[in-house]
C-alpha cells in the first residue's frame, strides 16, 4: 500500500506538469504576482526585501486554496475519486499524497519567485534559508488544510473559485498579505489576527531579513492550530462522489475550522500579539539611522537629563537589594520582554524605540519598579544590539523623537496604564540619551 501511495504522489505531480491550466496557476500567476509586487515595492532598500514574506504567502495561498481544490473537485466531478474509493487504501493516505504533491509544487514556485526576485530586482536571498523552509512548511500546511475544506464544500470547479476568493480576498485586503499590515488601519490589523495570512507573513518575513524563527513561535503555533483544524474538518467533510452532498451535521466541522481561527485570534489579542504594527515610513523615508555621523553623535548633550534617582526617567544603578517579590516580578517582566514581538519584529530602529518605550511607560505610570525596569531595558538593548549600531540608533531617536511608531501601553508586560504619545516620545528620547551617554562614556554609572 505504501507503494501505492508513493505512486499516487508521483502521478499527481506528473499530471500537474502535463496540465496547462495547472502550470498557469502554479507558475505563471506567481510570476505575475512577483512583477506586481516589484512594480509597487521596488523602491525599497533592498528592493522587495520587506515584502518577500507577503509574496510567498500569496503564492502559497493561491496554490493551496485554488490550485489544489480545483484539481480535487475536477477529479471528483469526473468520478476519479469515486473509483479511488474502491481501492484498499485510506482516505488519509490519498489526501496526504495529494497535499504533499501540492506542497512541492508550491515550494518550487516559491523558489522560482526568490530566484527571479534576485535576478530581476536584486533582492537578496533569504538570510535564514533553512528556517524559511520550516516556516514555509507550516504556512503551506495551514493553507492546504483550508484548501481541503474548500474542496470538500465546493460542488464544482466554479464554486472553488467563489469559496477560494472568500478566503483569499479578505487576507489580501485586510489580512496583512497583499496590503502590508503597517499600511492597514488598527481595526484591520486586529481582524488580520483572526486569519492565518498574518501569521504566515510574520513567520516567513523574518527568515528573509530578520532574526529567523527565534520569535515566530506564536505564529507557527497559530498556523499549526489552523492547519490541523482545517485538515480534520476537510477530511470529515471529504466527498468521494460528485453526487453526494455535505450533510447538515457535517457543517459542524466547518464550525471547527472557523473556531480555530477565532481561538487563535483571541489568544493573539489577549497575549499582546495583535499590537498595532506601526507604519515605519519615518525611519525609512526620512534620514536613515545608518547615515548618522560621528559628528551628530558627538553633538548630543546630556546636561538636560534628570538624575537617575529623580522621579522622571529614574534608573536603578543595580538590581541588587530587591525583595523576593520584586525580584520575582522583575524576572517575569524580563521573561515576557524576551518573547515580546515588538522587541523582535521590524527594523532595528523601531525595535530599539519599542524597547525604550517599556522604560518610558514604567516611568510615567510610576511603576514601583520603574528604575529597575529601565535597567532591564538598558541591559536588553545592549545585549541585542552591537554597540556601534545601538549608538547610531539612539542618536537617531534623540534627533528624531517624533518618527517611527510609539507604543503607549504594555499590559502584556505587566505594566499598567497608558501614556500620552507625546510624553512617551519625550521620555523614550530621554532614556535614549541616558543610554547613549553611557555608551559613549559621557555618563558614568
Amino acid at each position: 500500500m505504501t507503494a501505492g501511495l508513493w505512486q499516487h504522489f508521483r502521478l499527481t505531480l506528473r499530471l500537474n506538469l502535463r496540465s496547462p491550466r495547472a502550470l498557469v496557476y502554479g507558475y505563471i500567476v506567481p510570476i505575475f504576482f512577483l512583477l506586481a509586487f516589484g512594480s509597487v515595492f521596488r523602491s525599497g532598500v533592498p528592493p522587495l526585501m520587506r515584502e518577500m514574506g507577503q509574496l510567498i504567502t500569496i503564492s502559497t495561498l493561491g496554490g493551496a486554496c485554488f490550485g489544489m481544490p480545483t484539481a480535487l473537485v475536477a477529479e471528483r466531478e469526473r468520478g476519479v475519486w469515486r473509483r479511488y474509493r474502491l481501492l484498499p487504501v485510506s482516505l488519509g493516505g490519498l489526501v496526504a499524497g495529494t497535499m504533499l504533491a501540492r506542497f512541492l509544487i508550491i515550494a518550487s514556485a516559491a523558489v522560482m519567485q526568490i530566484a527571479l526576485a534576485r535576478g530581476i530586482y536584486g533582492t537578496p536571498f533569504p538570510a535564514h534559508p533553512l528556517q524559511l523552509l520550516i516556516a514555509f512548511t507550516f504556512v503551506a500546511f495551514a493553507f492546504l488544510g483550508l484548501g481541503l475544506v474548500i474542496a470538500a464544500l465546493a460542488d464544482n470547479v466554479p464554486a472553488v473559485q467563489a469559496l477560494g476568493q472568500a478566503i483569499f480576498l479578505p487576507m489580501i485586503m485586510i489580512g496583512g498579505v497583499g496590503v502590508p499590515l503597517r499600511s492597514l488601519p488598527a481595526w484591520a490589523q486586529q481582524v488580520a489576527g483572526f486569519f492565518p495570512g498574518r501569521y504566515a507573513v510574520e513567520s516567513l518575513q523574518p527568515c528573509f531579513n530578520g532574526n529567523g524563527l527565534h520569535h515566530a513561535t506564536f505564529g507557527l503555533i497559530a498556523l499549526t492550530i489552523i492547519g490541523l483544524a482545517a485538515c480534520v474538518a476537510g477530511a470529515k467533510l471529504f466527498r468521494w462522489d460528485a453526487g453526494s452532498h455535505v450533510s447538515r451535521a457535517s457543517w459542524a466541522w466547518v464550525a471547527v475550522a472557523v473556531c480555530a481561527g477565532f481561538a487563535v485570534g483571541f489568544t493573539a489579542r489577549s497575549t499582546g500579539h495583535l499590537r498595532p504594527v506601526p507604519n515605519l515610513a519615518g525611519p525609512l523615508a526620512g534620514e536613515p539611522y545608518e547615515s548618522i555621523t560621528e559628528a551628530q553623535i558627538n553633538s548630543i548633550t546630556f546636561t538636560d537629563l534628570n538624575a537617575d534617582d529623580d522621579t522622571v526617567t529614574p534608573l536603578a544603578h543595580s538590581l541588587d537589594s530587591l525583595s523576593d517579590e520584586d525580584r520575582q516580578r522583575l524576572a517575569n517582566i524580563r521573561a515576557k520582554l524576551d518573547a515580546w514581538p515588538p522587541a523582535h519584529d521590524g527594523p532595528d530602529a523601531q525595535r530599539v524605540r519599542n524597547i525604550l518605550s517599556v522604560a518610558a511607560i514604567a516611568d510615567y505610570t510610576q511603576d514601583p519598579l520603574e528604575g529597575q525596569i529601565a535597567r532591564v531595558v538598558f541591559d536588553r538593548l545592549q545585549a541585542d544590539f552591537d554597540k556601534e549600531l545601538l549608538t547610531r540608533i539612539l542618536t537617531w531617536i534623540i534627533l528624531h523623537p517624533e518618527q517611527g511608531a510609539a507604543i503607549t501601553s504594555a499590559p502584556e508586560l505587566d505594566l499598567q496604564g497608558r501614556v500620552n504619545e507625546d510624553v512617551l516620545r519625550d521620555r523614550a528620547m530621554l532614556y535614549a540619551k541616558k543610554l547613549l551617554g553611557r555608551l559613549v562614556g559621557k555618563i558614568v554609572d
Partner: protein
Amino acid sequence: MAAAAAADAALAVRDLAKRYGDTDALRGVSFDVAAGEIFGILGPNGAGKTTTIECILGLRHPDGGSITIAGIDAMREPRRVKQIVGAQLQSTALQEKITPREALTLFASFYGNAIKPNELITRFSLGEKADAPFDSLSGGQRQRLALALAFVNDPAVVFLDEPTAALDPQVRRELHREIRQIKSAGRTVVLSTHYIDEAHQLCDRIAIIDRGRVVAVGQPDELVAASKTPARIVIRTSKPLDASRLREIVPSSVLREHAGEWHISSNEVTRTVTAIVSMVDGNELLDLQIHRPTLEDVYLELTGTPFGPSE
C-alpha cells in the same frame, strides 16, 4: 441453513435496505451468487440495481442488512473485501492526461497480488493506446480500460455495472467474449445490464429487482419456463378457418384473427397445435409459428413495466 449457504457463496446479500430521504431505494434485497457464476441484475429505472451494487462495493452505506463476500463481512471489513473484489463502475472516468499504462500501474501498486500492467494491456487490447492520454481514448477503449482496472488485483469476484452501455455492437460482442473468459478463468461475475438479451446470453442466473425488492431469481430459462405468460401461436391457411370450430377445439385459449392470421395464446402449446393441425385437414397450412415467452415477457409479467433502458 441460509447462513451456511451464505458462507459458501461468493456473494451473499441479505435483507439489504437503503433509504434516500423518504424513499425506500432498497427494501430487503436478498440473493446469493455462487462461485464461478455470472449473475445478472435486471430491473427498470430506479429499481435499485445500481444502489445494490454500490452498497455491496461500499460506495453507499446501507441502512440495514448484511453483505458477505467470499465469507468476509463486507460491512465490517471493507478494506479486506476490496483486496479480493474488482469493479467496473458506470461511466468510469480518469484524469484527462493519465495514460492507461499509468492508471494500471497506479491501481496495481495498491495490491499485493497485482497482475502486471503489460499483461492487462495485452489482454484487454489496449496496446495501441497504452501511452495515450485518457481523453484521447474512444468509448470502447475507455470501457476496456475500466475492465482492465477491475482485474488489476486478479479478483475473486468482479462487479460490472452496465459494462456495455453506450457501446456499439462490435465492441459489445468483444466485451461479451471477455466476460465469458472471466467466467472460464473461474471468477465470479456480477453484472447489471441495459440489455435483456445480454443478460440471457451471458448470465447463469439473474435477479430481477423492482421497486427495491428482488421479485425473481433463477436461471434465465427456468424463469421463462416458470412464466405464466402463455405462448403465442400464429397460424395462416390458404382458406379461412372456421372460428366456431376453432374455439371449440381450443376452448381455453385466447383467439384473435388479424389480416388472415389467427393469433392464439395458450398455456398448452402441444395440445393446442395438435388440435389446430387436425382441423386444417383439406386446407393448406401456409405458416405456423410458436412464440414461447421470453425473458422480456417474464420481466413484464413480474414488474408490470416493459423492459427499457435501466437506471
